[in-house]
């Protein structure tokens, strides 16, 4: 299969869906002529024209709200927000309007709204451009939360997002745009709520999403050299969460490591851990390990930035702990 970049896969999804459905349109800062800060929307203006591909002023609350309103009226807007940090300006529209609309209208009102944005640390862009804020959206009933780690998933999930009727927080990662992977051409749909086993293994389950998936895979490769076979499970969507696949993996390995880039406190990892202990307590041979970011805004300094979010070695150490392997025993091996 041909390999393309994550950002190209996203573009392909938008392009195909705009082609397929004239209700799909996209607005955002610098997304038209300039093609967006991450080049996801390059070429779309030329192809679909200024009516469906529009630059906006710097007005996040307004543009998110306008997107939500357009969705309520039956269109299928994509609103691109440069950084998830900036989505905070539009939280009323996301939390009080988009998420609640369906219930408030007794189930009649639907909000096929997609907010695409990106988060994550690692660019030296400091505290206001580096957060991982999925837990905020995860906490709000009514929102779907999507966090693709691979180009094929990015394409398939975005296409699915543009065909369903609930508000979607489509959270990309700034480090993934240039990563490459095999992506099917044409119709390729990934439904929400279907986890993907990125690497099978019998000894320990590593649950990770977004940019933590490549990190977990690196850790799994290193663990394999020690004879430990880690299974890497990527939920792909946090809401809905594919607990079935997660629990089946836990039943095979009996040991769990959950890796999230976001801060530890109040995170999605804690919630997944609580689900596992509730549903599969007697399958567990060790306490669930959580590897997460420090409870701190992301600092600018490169070494401190690295220290603030999980690294490969943190995942490896957690897997060993889950397998009751003493650090000394490894050193002796």
């Amino acid at each position: 299969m041909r390999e393309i970049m994550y950002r190209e896969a996203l573009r392909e999804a938008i392009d195909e869906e705009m082609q397929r459905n004239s209700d799909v349109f996209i607005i955002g800062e610098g997304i038209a002529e300039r093609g967006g800060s991450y080049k996801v929307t390059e070429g779309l203006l030329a192809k679909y024209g200024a009516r469906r591909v529009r630059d906006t002023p710097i007005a996040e609350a307004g543009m998110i709200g306008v997107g939500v309103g357009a969705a309520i009226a039956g269109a299928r807007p994509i609103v691109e927000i440069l950084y998830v940090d900036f989505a905070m300006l539009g939280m009323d529209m996301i939390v009080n309007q988009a998420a609640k609309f369906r219930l408030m209208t007794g189930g009649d009102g639907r909000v096929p709204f997609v907010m695409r944005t990106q988060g994550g640390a690692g660019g030296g862009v400091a505290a206001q451009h580096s957060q991982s804020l999925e837990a905020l959206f995860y906490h709000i009933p009514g929102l779907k939360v999507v966090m693709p780690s691979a180009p094929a998933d990015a394409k398939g999930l975005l296409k699915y997002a543009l065909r369903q009727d609930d508000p979607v927080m489509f959270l990309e990662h700034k480090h993934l745009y240039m990563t490459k992977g095999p992506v099917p051409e044409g119709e390729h749909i990934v439904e929400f709520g279907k986890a993907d086993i990125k690497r099978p293994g019998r000894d320990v389950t590593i649950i990770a999403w977004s940019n933590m998936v490549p990190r977990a895979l690196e850790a799994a490769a290193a663990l394999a050299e020690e004879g430990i076979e880690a299974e890497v499970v990527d939920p792909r969507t946090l809401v809905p969460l594919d607990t079935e696949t997660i629990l089946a993996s836990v039943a095979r390995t009996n040991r769990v490591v959950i890796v999230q880039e976001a801060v530890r406190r109040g995170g999605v990892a804690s919630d997944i851990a609580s689900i596992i202990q509730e549903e599969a307590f007697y399958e567990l041979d060790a306490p669930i390990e959580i590897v997460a970011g420090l409870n701190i805004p992301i600092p600018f300094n490169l070494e401190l930035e690295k220290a603030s979010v999980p690294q490969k070695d943190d995942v490896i150490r957690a897997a060993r702990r889950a397998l009751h392997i003493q650090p000394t025993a490894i050193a002796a091996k």
Partner: protein
Amino acid sequence: MDEAVKRNAPSREFLEKIFRTAYRIRVFETEGIKLYRQGLIRGYFHPYLGQEGIATGVCAALREGDYIASTHRGHGHCIAWGADVKRMVAELLQKETGYCRGYGGSMHIADIGKGNLGANGIVGAGTPLGVGAALAAQIRGSDAVTVTFTTDGASNNGTFLESLNLAAIWNLNFILVIENNQYAVSTPIEEATRDADLYKRGLSIGVESHQVDGNDPLAVYHLTREAVETCRAGKGPVLIEAKTFRHMGHHVNDPGKYMPEERLAYYKARDPIDRARAALVEMSGVDKADIDAIEAEIAAEFAEAVDFAKESREVTAAEFRQFVAAY
């Protein structure tokens, strides 16, 4: 163009429609407050009493396929837009037959199918939502117009500028109607802004903007009608500030002691229902017996709606759990 509705010679049919709408809102609010006081309605109830002329005049200038977005004081907009009073009362009584199956209540009544994007419990939120509906219409190549009813309080919210500006740069078919009732709960507009002529805010970003007596339903109608034409000619958006005043406190349980008596008397002397009734009588020779008949009919319609709501059932917790499963 609706030939029957000529600016200076409104037909009896039209004037009667205006009166009926305004009066229907008046009855809904007056009787609704009684139901509230009997304990049949819970939560917040923000009466539209005194402001009926605005929703009545604005909605009369719209047509099927257009959209409205409303406020926390939204019963009047909903009625003027043609909602079924039965289903509105049922919603306030939290019944399954209500517009929102009893999940929404007073502050969230909506009728998406008919283009009413809903009341809103967040002051100011209807403005971006309305601009969004106008954007959706433009993207679809439709000439539908969207009206957002907003408030003096909301004009100090950031999204007021953000979304009206978006409507302006995109020439959307959008009409923002500020119902300037001069108070946000107990805070007078003069304390909330240096310039209480709120229509000027539109001018500052290049939006055609007007001020109108919100207690004069026909004046509101004529101005909105022009605004609609401006929009359909591709020259929107338009801002309309309609000056008005509440007849009572902010919500049912607010005595509104802070409202200056002289000002209240001034506006009560310019009651929109009286003006709609007078217009009907003076311009089309309808007599008192006809008026009495109309009023009795509307009162009976409300009484019927109450019976309907009382007889309706509520959604059960078990049914609700099925709904929750989709979350």
